[in-house]
């Protein structure tokens, strides 16, 4: 059973290697990519079932037990996030494949796209599963290195610019991450997270605070928490739609996951953290207000992404089991919906030939299906009642309302940010889907994937986007069992006992 845990990491790497070898056959590459990600989804389902029934599944690499060896751990939270991430990655891959077919022809093989895409998936899986702080660093690097390549593929001047910003910021945060690992290792003599949970408490409080804040800065950059968010709206909109969807869906969420894992496991707290609450409130408001000022559809969505990172941080900041469970639920919901919105934005861009909201109009009459595909995730992101966004937001609000004055205030900010999200989405709807029908703009550069205008849109691209919309509806339908799982996951996170005993074979703390 425990060997299953390694598969979500090793299978995509194997797939990546095989797609390089199959560099001349586009069809083989496509098959490998889809098969690997489907297999990983199946493994993730199995892991979630086992972890939910009988506790965390632990795999010791090379048979070396923790804390000496490297372990991979799948508990409820990581298995759940692994499952949803892989499903989203699969849908995005199908979308990307069909976009490539539509743009470059059926025979266009690439020795970069498929391998790098799968490598990114491996990095994301490793980040969720690793039980070792240094291995988390490696996972981030795999993931980010792949994302650097994806964001600067088919370079033009603007993509070079956004690539430079993105790479420089990411590298800086990586080096800070490494510094943090060095300091933690120097202070405690271990990098195993379960082991750290027991040892950090023995350090002087000042040192604990320094290490905790350093962790916050490092993962705050990755997760785009205000004021460390500036790189995100600058760089994401310049990548092609599937790439942006993947980044927006997964990369920042991995940052939030890392924050969630380290803050609960290594730097636990027993009351709401005011620093985190302030940061969460700032993130929500700055992101939402930023979104209102935008004209570029992708930039608008990027700012909304930043805003909703604040929602997830809010649950962590409140720091009780219900709130952390709310964050987990929100991550699951947001991974799906944000990726869907960026895919839809890609479809809109292909239909209209522009990313500017002001230059669009009447799309609801031109292609009603597109309107439906946009409306569902837009309402979900805004958190209108029957959707998964509402369920997740309600969980967060309920947890936050009873947790003291600061948390209640932040919950109020959350409601304001939600209203601003509704406003931003309504503005997009009015500008883009209503109004006079405008003829699509001519394609400014046929070779560029970002603004393709009037180009043919393959049906499967709609199907892939529709499938993701289906996933987010499924989350709303299955909200009961899902929130039961996240509630148990939240309890596990704060309890720390099951995780530590599974990894280390020790008695629970406290």
């Amino acid at each position, binding site marked *: 059973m425990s060997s299953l845990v390694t598969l979500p990491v090793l299978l995509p790497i194997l797939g990546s290697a095989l797609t390089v070898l199959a560099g001349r056959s586009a069809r083989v590459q496509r098959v490998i990519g889809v098969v690997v990600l489907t297999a990983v989804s199946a493994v993730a389902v199995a892991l979630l079932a086992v972890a939910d029934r009988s506790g965390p599944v632990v795999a010791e690499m090379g048979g070396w037990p923790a804390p000496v060896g490297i372990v991979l751990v799948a508990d409820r939270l990581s298995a759940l996030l692994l499952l949803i991430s892989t499903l989203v990655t699969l849908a995005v891959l199908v979308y990307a494949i069909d976009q490539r077919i539509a743009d470059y022809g059926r025979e266009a093989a690439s020795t970069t796209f498929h391998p790098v895409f799968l490598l990114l998936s491996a990095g994301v899986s490793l980040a969720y599963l690793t039980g070792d702080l*240094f291995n988390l*660093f*490696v996972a981030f*690097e795999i993931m980010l*290195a792949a994302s*650097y*390549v994806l964001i*600067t593929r088919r*370079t*033009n*001047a*603007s993509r*070079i*610019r*956004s*690539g*430079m*910003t993105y*790479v*420089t910021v990411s*590298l*800086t945060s*990586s*080096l800070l991450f*490494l*510094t943090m*690992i*060095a*300091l933690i*290792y*120097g*202070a405690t003599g271990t*990098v195993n997270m379960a082991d750290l949970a027991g040892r950090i408490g023995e350090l002087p409080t000042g040192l604990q605070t320094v290490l905790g804040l350093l962790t916050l800065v490092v993962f705050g950059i990755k997760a785009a928490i205000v004021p460390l968010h500036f790189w995100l*709206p600058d760089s994401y*909109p*310049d990548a092609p739609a599937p790439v942006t969807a993947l980044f927006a869906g997964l990369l920042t969420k991995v940052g939030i996951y890392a924050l969630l894992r380290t803050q609960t496991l290594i730097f636990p707290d027993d009351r709401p953290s005011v620093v985190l609450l302030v940061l969460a409130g700032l993130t929500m408001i700055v992101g939402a207000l930023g979104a*209102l*000022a*935008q*004209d*570029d559809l992708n*930039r608008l969505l990027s700012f909304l992404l930043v805003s909703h990172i604040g929602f997830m941080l809010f649950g962590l900041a409140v720091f009780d089991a219900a709130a952390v469970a709310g964050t987990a639920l929100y991550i699951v919901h947001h991974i799906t919906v944000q990726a869907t919105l960026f895919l839809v934005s890609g479809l809109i861009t292909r239909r209209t*030939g*522009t*990313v*500017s909201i*002001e*230059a669009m109009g009447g799309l609801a009459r031109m292609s009603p299906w597109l309107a439906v595909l946009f409306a569902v995730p837009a309402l979900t992101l805004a958190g209108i009642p029957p959707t998964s966004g509402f369920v997740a937001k309600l969980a967060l609000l309920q947890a936050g309302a009873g947790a003291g004055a600061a948390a209640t205030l932040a919950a109020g900010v959350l409601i304001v940010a939600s209203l601003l999200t509704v*406003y931003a989405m309504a*503005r997009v709807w*009015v500008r883009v889907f209503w*109004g006079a029908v*405008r003829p699509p*703009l001519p394609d*400014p*550069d046929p070779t*560029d994937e*970002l*603004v393709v*205008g009037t180009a043919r849109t393959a049906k499967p691209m709609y199907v892939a986007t529709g499938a993701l919309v289906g996933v987010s509806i499924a989350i709303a339908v299955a909200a009961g069992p899902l929130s039961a799982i996240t509630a148990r996951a939240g309890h596990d996170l704060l309890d720390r006992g099951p995780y530590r005993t599974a990894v280390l074979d020790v008695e629970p703390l406290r």
Partner: protein
Amino acid sequence: MNAVNLSMTVVLAVLYSVGFYLLLQRSLMRVLLGIVVLGHGTNLLLQLIGSPPGRVPILGIALPSEFTDPLPQALALTAIVITFALTTYLLALGYRSWVLVGHDEVQDDLEDRRIAQRERPEASMGEETTGEDDAEDDPGSAAASGDPVDPADVGGER
């Protein structure tokens, strides 16, 4: 926890400050050097934090109590591999920038500047645009054309 000696602390401070200073430069080549220097600083920190300098490597040629801690060395090795890969990537990126734009300077985000310079945010819904924003001007072209764009004349772009 073991004490780190003063001279090494000074070296660390110099490496970190030089690294961060270079990171703040416009030219990607300097940023690259900054990342290399910063990487060296971090690796040095990893080494110092493991065990005091001058101990025996873990090769089975001394008593176990005299061994230096091998884990930071393994961590540093991994970090070096990663930094090596990303350095070559940044070099390639700088080269592409030089080919496409003619220099390797990190540019400002034009769209961001344009929105910042706009007098009144057009966030109102419903009302038609008054042609001020020139929808016919093909908003995608600035991003897609690949022309070197001077950040100074942002206002007139698009």
